[in-house]
Each structure stands twice: as C-alpha cells, then as structure tokens.
C-alpha cells in the first residue's frame, strides 16, 4: 500500500505546496536571520558596543596597511584594526571582529581559504559528473512528466 503522500493524486498540488513551503522558509531565513551587520551597529553604537560581528559572505581583502586592513563585501568596504601579517589584497577572507562604540572594528580572528577557487572548480566537476551519471540511468517521460529508468 502506497502512503497517500506519495500517491499520484493531486500530484501537481503537492508539488506546488512543497515549493511554496520551501520558498516561505527561505524568506523566513532572509528576514529573521541572526546576523548583526556593521550598519546595524552604527545605528545604535552604545547598544552594540562590544558586539562580535562576522564577515564571511564573499568577502575579500582590500587595502592592507600596518595596523588595519580593508574588507570588501559586495559594495561595502569595512576597515578592521588588527594584525595584518600574511594578508594579501584580493584574497578571500573570513573575519570576526568586535564593534566598539566609536565605530571601530577590532580584529578577533580570521581565516584565509587559499584553495577556495580550486575547491569550487572541483565541486563543479563533481556536479557535471553527477548530471552525466543521472542522464545515463534515467530519461524524462514527457507523457507522464516523470523520470524513468532507461
């Protein structure tokens, strides 16, 4: 006996409902995430004094000086004060920093994912291999709109 949830009855509706729930959960993540951004800290410096912020999303090293360096995240450019040894402009970087009420960011920890680009290429190859393997074993039945084994 096939559970009702897996049956073909209302298949299109089930697909639509699942897509909607997934989309709503993603919207929930977008709107209610725990990230504290630098702009948010600047809007109320007293309240956010001492808060640790994380800069991890597609962030790169910009200018590097003796006691501070720049982190570029999209269009944003943040100045972070701390040790700048081993930092090379253009490198990907992940940073945690402490916000101070004068607007300064104090470096706490950082990580340079040196092999990130290579990892992306390797992952892309794996994706292509999986698509190839899948198409080798399955074909799409346009009449019933399902994948069937070859």
């Amino acid at each position, binding site marked *: 006996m*096939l*559970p009702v*949830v*897996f*049956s*073909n009855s209302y*298949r299109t509706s*089930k*697909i639509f409902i*699942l*897509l909607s*729930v*997934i989309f709503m*959960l*993603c*919207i*929930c*993540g*977008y709107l209610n*995430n*725990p*990230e504290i951004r630098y702009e948010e800290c600047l809007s109320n410096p007293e309240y956010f004094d001492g808060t*640790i912020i*994380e800069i*991890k*999303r*597609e962030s790169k090293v910009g200018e590097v000086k003796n006691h501070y360096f720049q982190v570029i*995240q*999209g269009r944003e450019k943040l100045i972070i004060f701390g040790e700048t040894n081993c930092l090379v402009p253009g490198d990907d970087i*992940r*940073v*945690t920093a402490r916000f101070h009420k004068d607007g300064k960011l104090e470096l706490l*920890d*950082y*990580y340079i*994912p*040196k*092999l*990130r680009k*290579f*990892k*992306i290429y*390797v*992952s892309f*190859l*794996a*994706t292509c*291999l*999986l698509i190839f*393997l*899948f198409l080798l*074993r*399955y074909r799409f039945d346009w009449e*019933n*709109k*399902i*994948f*069937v084994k070859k």
Partner: protein
Amino acid sequence: MPDLCTHVCVAWLLTRILRRIEHYTTIFLIGNALPDILSRPIYMFKSDLYWFAIPIHTPAVMFLVSLLISFLFDCKERKQIFLILFSGTMCHQFMDLFQKHVGSSPYFLLFPLSWKGISLGLFWPEASLFFLPILVLLVLSTLLFKRRFSVMK
C-alpha cells in the same frame, strides 16, 4: 564544507558497503550533493541572498526538497527515491559537521526551530582537498575490482 567531489566519493564508498542502496547509487550520490548544489550558487552570484539560501542547507528544507524531487519519479518507487535522497542529504550534513569555522557555524540543523549553528570544528573546509586523491583512488579501485570480478564470473 568538504568539496562536492569528497562528498560524492564518500557516498559512493558507502553504497559499496550498504548493499541495500546499491540499486539507487545515483540517487544517493545526488542526495549527497543536493544541499550544496541548491544553496551555494545562489549566494555565490548574489551575496545579498545568503540568508535566503542558507535554509536550503538544513535538514528541514532538505526533507521537503527530497519529497518534492521524489514526485518527479514513478509513484511505485517514489517512497524509495525519497528515503534514499533524504539519506544522502543527511550524509552530507553529517560530513559538514566536522568543519571548523571562524565565528559561528553556518550549519543550522535545528532550523526553523533555532538559529543555533552546530559544528564539531575538526578541520578547515579546504582540508578535504588533501584527502581527495586517496578517495578518488579508492573509488577507482572499487570500480576496477567490480569490473574484474564480473569478468571473472
């Protein structure tokens, strides 16, 4: 996370050990790659959508995605496809747990109930690349062994 090649190689080796899922090897491999395939490209191309994409890489959403994808298959094997696919995604999530992160973990296993990031913090994400040649060799060895065994039969 480990690179996708590492995920796929480990998944392949698991299918050799767990004979029950050998018949659905491709589906299990796809399940292992699914969290990254669906979530990473979104914020790689548009970093503003990071928090839109992160829920996709959670067990709750992967459960729904596995169910959704199972509807693209024949109803006779739909339940099996769902179970294998979801197992693959959970295998991926399990491997991701071993990673180190700067700051909090981006793996929210309890989403949408909690935003607590969970991680064991054992190795940096790119460390998997150093083990990859060994894994690839192991996979090729199992393929070669399987071929020789079937020729001998």
